[in-house]
């Protein structure tokens, strides 16, 4: 293991240790900030009872449905906007106007439109993801170097091949970054949507713990949300070299810091 890997592991552990010390020395109020050891115990009990798995399953499945129904149209619109100036002229300002609207604030609108069942929750996640994917994909298409478009024209590349073998792989690094961001936003939206009109999901668990003032369970559920997001982005990081094998050398040699953060 490299020295950097050790730093990565040490970071959360050291912060947790600081927290533990702050609570045991009464610097932090244990009523509001239970010690990490107590949260850990509660988390284990939460997992053993089977509730954690059920809640995580519901949140994860809502997230995945929302990612698909929002992400695919968002990616397609982003591709169209990147390729065609007219599409960009029409949708660009609309997206810029709608993107900052907090989806949580318009959740009642989704209930009105899609009923009080699952569909409204999917819609809330999907809408958030849609904008992110459209914006990232458009940027991805527009950063494809002109030379590749020249080559495609010079060699009379067919429209289908152009789409699947030039446009899509050319924009893929940005699309992939968009998916990573979408997972983060999607989890936030899924958990928020679970505050209402459901009895399952990590969001409901958080809401319920707040209602009955079970602070340790509240934190245990927050830990579950955090681990869910962490796990999903870890999977995406692992898959990245397989999805974009021509870029594998970049992540090896360069540190992820400047280069990728700047793109996001």
């Amino acid at each position, binding site marked *: 293991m490299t020295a950097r890997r050790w730093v990565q592991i040490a970071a959360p552990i050291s912060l947790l240790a600081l927290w533990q010390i702050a609570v045991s020395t009464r610097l932090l109020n244990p009523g509001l900030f239970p010690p990490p050891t107590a949260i850990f115990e509660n988390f284990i009990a939460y997992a053993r009872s089977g509730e954690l798995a059920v809640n995580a399953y519901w949140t994860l499945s809502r997230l995945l449905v929302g990612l698909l129904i929002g992400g695919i149209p968002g990616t397609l619109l982003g591709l169209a906007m990147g390729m065609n100036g007219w599409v960009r002229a029409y949708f660009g300002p609309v997206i810029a106007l709608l993107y900052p609207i907090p989806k949580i604030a318009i959740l009642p609108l989704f209930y009105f439109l899609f009923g009080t069942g699952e569909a409204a929750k999917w819609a809330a996640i999907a809408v958030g993801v849609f904008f992110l994917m459209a914006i990232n994909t458009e940027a991805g298409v527009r950063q494809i170097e002109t030379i590749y478009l020249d080559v495609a024209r010079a*060699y009379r590349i067919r429209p289908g*091949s152009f789409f699947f073998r030039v446009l899509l792989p050319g924009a893929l690094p940005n699309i992939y970054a968009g998916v990573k961001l979408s997972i983060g936003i999607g989890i936030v939206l899924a958990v928020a949507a679970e505050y209402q009109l459901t009895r399952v999901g990590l969001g409901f668990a958080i809401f319920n713990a707040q209602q009955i003032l079970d602070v340790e369970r509240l934190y245990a559920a927050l830990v579950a949300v955090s681990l869910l997001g962490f796990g999903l982005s870890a999977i995406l990081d692992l898959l990245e070299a397989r999805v974009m094998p021509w870029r594998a050398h970049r992540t090896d040699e360069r540190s992820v810091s400047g280069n990728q953060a700047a793109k996001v």
Partner: protein
Amino acid sequence: MASIGVEHLTKRYPNGTVALDDVNLEIADNEFVAIVGPSGCGKSTLLRIMAGLDAATEGRVVVEGAVSKKPELPSATVFQEASLFPWMRVDENVAFAFDSLGVPRDEIARRVRDVLGLVGLGGYERAWPHELSGGMKQRAAVARAFVTDPPVLYMDEPFGALDEQTRVGLANELMRLWERSPKTVVFVTHGIEEAVTLADRVVVLSARPGSVKEIVPIAFPRPRDAVALRGDPAFGVHVVRLWELLR
């Protein structure tokens, strides 16, 4: 089989700049023509218009050739910059030239393998472009241009970004390929010696707006060798003549 006629070609940009002013040029079938000129004279613009990548404001480019029965591209283009798709392996990049031609898969594979062998990239079929040196990347780009055996080849300063030794080596390889499968070549370069080495005729463009200033025939017998040619007194005479025309 293709001869090219450039007729009264003018390129004006919307801001009023005239890049090319009434360019006229006749290029014979299987002729190797080099185009040189002061930087900014519009030689790359001329090539891009000939290759169908840019539109002319006035005038036209006429390509005449026997109608071929085999599926082929009307022309292929080699660019100065790294133009291999980074997301395709070397053999996929070369095979991509067949995209619109409907050639059977196994024949594509055979021809890709053959041409990569000819440009000295045998064994690098499955490499990614980023794993190749600058010279190897341009060899692969030349392979992509030759693999479908088109009647016309446009080359836009293809070796311009390479060091001198690599350039001379690639000039020799290009001539070997061209002798094996003759085609009409239009080769834009800022290298005077490179133009004299390769071409049957060197077209000298004037400074902006570009127009044909002079056409210098280079009568060295073929096959030529890029290194041996430099010892020929006539080589130096041509080079000096071209330098003077470019002043």
